[in-house]
């Protein structure tokens, strides 16, 4: 390790998506909590191998959709039936059937914006830099390579032991990543 920069963690490359799944299962069994697998595409079965708990994102989207629907109705009711009443074509001031299209659109708008922004925020993005992104070989994680990274802040982390685990579970080329 060059200079006095702190160790962020270790990163190991895996030969294929299947190797990555096996490696992830091993790291999970060893009891690590602050670690991650990296792949250029979502690998089927990796969530189970890593033991990732289902995200709360769908519930946020549901909540946002319901909020949008209610706001859509309240807006139309308040604007056309309370604050600025005017007769047009003899229609009632507050007419639920004519409110439905806009209620639907506002529901969709809120739900979609929430799905998008919740994905980004829950993932801790956006960020302009990350220790892993400074590693030259790791750049292939968005191309064709598979990696597992284990952070030094993990309570079970021990440089020698963790490196041994990564090698034993199928990782090749284990590298140190500086913070």
């Amino acid at each position: 390790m060059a200079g006095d920069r702190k160790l962020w963690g270790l990163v190991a490359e895996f030969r294929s998506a299947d190797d990555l799944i096996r490696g992830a299962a091993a790291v999970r069994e060893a009891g690590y909590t602050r670690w991650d697998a990296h792949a250029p595409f979502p690998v089927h079965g990796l969530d189970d191998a890593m033991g990732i708990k289902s995200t709360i994102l769908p519930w946020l989207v549901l909540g946002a959709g319901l909020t949008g629907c209610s706001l859509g109705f309240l807006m139309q009711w308040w604007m056309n039936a309370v604050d600025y009443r005017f007769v047009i074509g003899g229609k009632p001031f507050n007419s639920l059937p004519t409110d439905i299209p806009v209620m639907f659109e506002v529901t969709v708008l809120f739900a979609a914006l929430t799905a998008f922004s919740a994905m980004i925020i829950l993932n801790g993005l956006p960020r302009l830099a990350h220790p892993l992104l400074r590693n030259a070989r790791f750049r292939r994680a968005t191309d064709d390579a598979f990696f597992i990274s284990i952070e030094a802040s993990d309570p079970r982390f021990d440089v020698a032991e963790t490196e041994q685990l990564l090698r034993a579970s199928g990782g090749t080329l284990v590298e140190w990543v500086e913070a």
Partner: protein
Amino acid sequence: MGVAAIDRRDVRDNLGDDPGRRAPLVLGKHDNATITDKVCRIVEMPKPPKAWYVAFGIALTVTGVLGAMLAYLISTGVGVWGLNKPIAWGFDITNFVFWVGIGHAGTLISAILYLFRQNWRTGINRFAEAMTIFAVICAGMFPGIHTGRAWLDYWLFPLPNQMAMWPNFRSPLLWDVFAVSTYMTVSICFWYMGMIPDLATIRDRTTSKLKGAIYGIFALGWRGSNRHWHRYERAYLLLAAIATPLVLSVHSVVSFDFATSMMPGWHATIFPPYFVAGAIFGGFAMVLVLAVPCRQWFGLKDLITPRHLENMCKILLATGMMVGYAYAIEFFISWYSGNPAEGFVFINRAFGPYAWAYWTMVFCNVATPQVFWSRRARQNPWIIFGVAICVNVGMWFERFVIIVTSLHRDFLPSSWNMYFPTWVEVTTLVGSFGLFFTLFLLFLRFLPMVAMAEVKAVLQKQHHEAR
């Protein structure tokens, strides 16, 4: 394992119809690295091919003409158009509905085909989504300028204003404002979110500091983390589930602009499904118009395979017949309703002064897609391209026929009139194509035109099955 085990036949073409074997969606000997390379190379070329410059120059010039037309229109007034009483909607709304319709294919491909697990969408979804956004930009422009006083367009939105007035939510024209702007926003979210992993790929490959910084900002720090992929996939699925009814709602709401009025020829309950089918039909035709040359010029024949084209041709054939069925039912109902005004409008459509427009529409939309019953036609890029152009022309005429033929023969014969576009309207229509192609060419140059991460996931499955 892997590529070597795939049937040799599949490497060359994937048109087999054996139900026992899943046709591969990526042809040739590809792995993850070659896919990255193929798609990124288009963006990484130091200079685009000469043809790109020529195309971009033409498109940009035509966009300039559009700008001049808009300036002329806004500074002078809508009198520069050929609108009159009773034909208050002409090219403006025809173009609006035409472009919004084209904008439907992208989200249909990304959302509906995603929910139906149609994996062949991965080759074409990215640029179809881009096409959607650019088409909706062109579409949104027309209602904005047809209002006459374009600087007051903010009245369309429920914004507090000095007159203490609110918009009228009991009008379908206002629903349209909400539908189209929601559609635009959601389509951009969908498109951008799908692109984040691919932008990260470009960021990680580039050697230029500036490019790395720009793509890096838009890639949001994506690093292929599986904890991220988990939320990403869930969010993508939800977006698809939300966007599916949205796609269907947008053109339904557009059709309400007509259907809730009392104009003969417009006042029909068939309008929402009829418009949606037409939108998918026209949108897929535009995807084909763009896909056929792009896969040729950018060497993407392994990713946008003959099977992709064939599938889209089948969709054209199916939706073309739905549209044809709607034309027939409109005639039947106009007779069956016993309403003389309704009956007259349809006879007048087919045999009146705009009969040429009506029959152009029928020929382009109903007759020409029938060639796709033939397997040979579905596999010949020239025929596909020709039919797709025809369908686009036909779908423009469909909107023209619906709008103008209904308006020009009102209930009162004393108000009957003819509508002829002025040179300004014709140039504005041409100019909107300039804007569309300018944006599309910029997209081809600077953004990944195929969803690499998704193609890799499909390839992974393909390799697993070949084992």
